[in-house]
């Protein structure tokens, strides 16, 4: 396939978007590509709801006395922000949108293994989201996204049960999505597509799916116990009746820490694709990157109690978990080094997705390194539950996961819509997001180091200047997120047709038309080469 588009590309006559019309053709679709769109709409909505909550919080924190919001309102806002961003935006972002759209295409299949189950997952997700929104609108919930007991079970009188129910329900959506992906990747690969010819995006989606399958049920049962305890008050987490509040934290973080890797692993997969495509190189150390995904998936389950070093947990258990937590840093470091090395002797272009990828690698590095502080027992004692933590996980989740998601959306947008977005605007917004992000969360590292606790709606005056900087950065960041919304929407209708392979990239998804036909390929592709075989081209 030529890398230079000589003739002006045009959209194919029939593709998955125009094969049928009407709301029934969307709401009852079993086409994984259309389901990806359903998720895209839902999570975009949730992203801006969560973002609005964050905006209000940052506005409130401009002044130490926090005169904009009542403390109770502020508490509801950070709870809603956390729960929405984690369960209703980030968890489904890359897996349910890009994963759904791409996994079958990348492995040369007609659809996922269980298309109806896939649609069911979306409905379960929407049900969970609606129940959660009902909890929010009907008075909110103010326990923090962690639902720590006995605060959540006994001492707050907000909508804990319905919020927990929303999380419980949406958890099954994630489980079923993960199940679908695992089976699809195992059983549906095109002829010749061996495991070590798979794109690295598939490897990391596989790893993330494994975490979905093994971690989500634990949060589900924990939410059940939480609801029962709140309803019947039998004392399972209430020390007054012999319960152990730290048990809740164990169960929560057994899910909670792997959840972080659910959020970041898919984005790591995206970055592998982007770096390869825009450096026109096979990813350096393919097998190391592939196995590091699997290693992360496994080790992520062994580190959960580093969230609990000061919780009153046994300090000896702390030693074990600290050691294991350092172990999870290694595979992440391997990924970063390999991505960077991939550019060596490459042909690097500066298209918007690559800007996101470079941003991701740098910011994820910073997020990962600050993770070392938190895995270190002694250091964690001081920075635990301060803004240091807040900054750290936003570097991972926003600097990492969201950057990866946006990079992926830009990269595959021509495939999803068949049209190109305006490149200049895209680069501009990538730059704005990078600058705004660092301004927002960089100062928070210092804030945490000097001791400002998280989840404070008012704070001592000496912390003000850093908070003002952070809020100023947040306003830049907000602009950076709104610009893509506008130009992507515009381009979906008015952008110039992209042609099957606008980037000159390798991978099965670029062999089919843009947008692809309903069954992805006119005939089942047969794979004869490894992934990212750029150098062999036209050789």
């Amino acid at each position, binding site marked *: 396939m030529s890398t230079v588009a000589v003739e002006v590309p045009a959209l194919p006559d029939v593709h998955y978007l125009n094969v049928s019309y009407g709301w029934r053709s969307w709401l009852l679709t079993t086409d994984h590509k259309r389901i990806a769109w359903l998720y895209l709409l839902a999570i975009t909505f949730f992203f801006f709801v969560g973002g609005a909550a964050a905006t209000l919080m940052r506005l409130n924190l401009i002044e130490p006395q926090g005169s904009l919001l009542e403390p109770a309102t502020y508490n509801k806002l950070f709870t809603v922000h956390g729960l929405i961003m984690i369960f209703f935006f980030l968890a489904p972002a890359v897996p349910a949108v890009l994963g759904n759209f791409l996994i079958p295409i990348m492995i040369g299949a007609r659809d996922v293994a269980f298309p109806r189950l896939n649609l069911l997952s979306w409905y379960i997700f929407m049900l969970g989201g609606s129940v959660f929104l009902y909890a929010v609108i009907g008075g909110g919930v103010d326990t923090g996204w962690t639902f720590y007991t006995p605060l959540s079970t006994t001492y707050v009188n907000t909508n804990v049960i319905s919020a927990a129910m929303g999380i419980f329900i949406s958890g099954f959506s994630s489980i079923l999505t993960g199940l679908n992906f695992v089976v699809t990747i*195992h059983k549906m690969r095109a002829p010749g597509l061996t495991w070590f010819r798979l794109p690295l995006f598939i490897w990391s989606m596989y790893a993330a799916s*494994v975490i979905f399958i*093994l971690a989500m049920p*634990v949060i589900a049962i924990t939410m059940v116990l939480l609801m029962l305890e709140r309803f019947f008050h039998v004392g399972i987490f209430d020390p007054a009746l012999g319960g*152990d509040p*730290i*048990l809740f934290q*164990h169960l929560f973080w*057994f899910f909670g820490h792997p959840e972080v890797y659910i959020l970041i692993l898919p984005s790591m997969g995206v970055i592998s694709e982007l770096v390869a495509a825009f450096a026109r190189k096979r990813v350096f150390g393919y097998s190391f990157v592939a196995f590091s995904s699997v290693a992360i998936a496994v080790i992520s*389950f*062994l580190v*959960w*109690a580093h969230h609990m070093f000061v919780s*009153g*947990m*046994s*300090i*000896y*258990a702390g030693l*074990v*978990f600290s050691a294991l937590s350092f172990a999870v840093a290694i595979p992440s470091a391997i990924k970063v080094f390999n991505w960077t090395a991939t550019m060596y002797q490459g042909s690097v272009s500066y298209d918007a997705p690559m800007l996101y990828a470079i941003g991701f690698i740098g910011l994820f590095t910073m997020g990962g390194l600050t993770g070392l502080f938190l895995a270190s027992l002694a250091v964690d004692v001081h920075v635990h539950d301060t803004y240091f933590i807040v900054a750290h996980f936003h570097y991972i989740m926003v600097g990492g996961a969201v950057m990866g998601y946006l990079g992926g959306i830009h990269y595959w947008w021509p495939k999803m819509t068949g049209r190109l977005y305006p490149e200049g605007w895209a680069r501009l917004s990538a730059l704005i997001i990078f600058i705004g992000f660092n301004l927002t969360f960089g100062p928070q590292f210092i804030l945490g180091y000097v001791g400002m606790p998280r989840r404070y709606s008012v704070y001592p005056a000496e912390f003000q200047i850093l908070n003002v900087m952070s809020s100023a950065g947040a306003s830049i960041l907000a602009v950076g997120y709104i610009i893509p919304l506008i130009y992507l929407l515009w381009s979906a209708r008015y952008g110039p047709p992209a042609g099957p392979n606008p980037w000159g990239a390798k991978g099965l998804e670029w062999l089919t038309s843009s947008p692809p036909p309903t069954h992805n390929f006119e005939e089942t592709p047969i794979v004869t080469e490894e992934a990212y075989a750029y150098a062999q081209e036209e050789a």
Partner: protein
Amino acid sequence: MTEHIVPKKIYILVFAILIAFTALTTAVAYTDLGPFNTVVALAIAVCKASLVVLFFMHMKYNPGMTRIVLAAAVGWLAILLALTLTDVSSRHWLPAPQGWESSAPSPRPR
């Protein structure tokens, strides 16, 4: 995967063993084995579960992948239990106190 049809005899045999194990585990509950009561009960339960998995659920005749899935499930359950117990079992061990010398640098005014 080729379908494998298990002879009826094997099913009946497994069933008989399961029933025998149930009787055994109930009998053990009435016998004083000290701390081994729980161990024996759990060992019997594991045997029964293995029989069900191997024969009723056809694990014996299945491809490797399902075994890996099963191993993962059991392994992760073990992780959850074992690592939680590292905390609970050692939570009340207190660190030994250390000596204290007032190496007092004279208090500096701030």
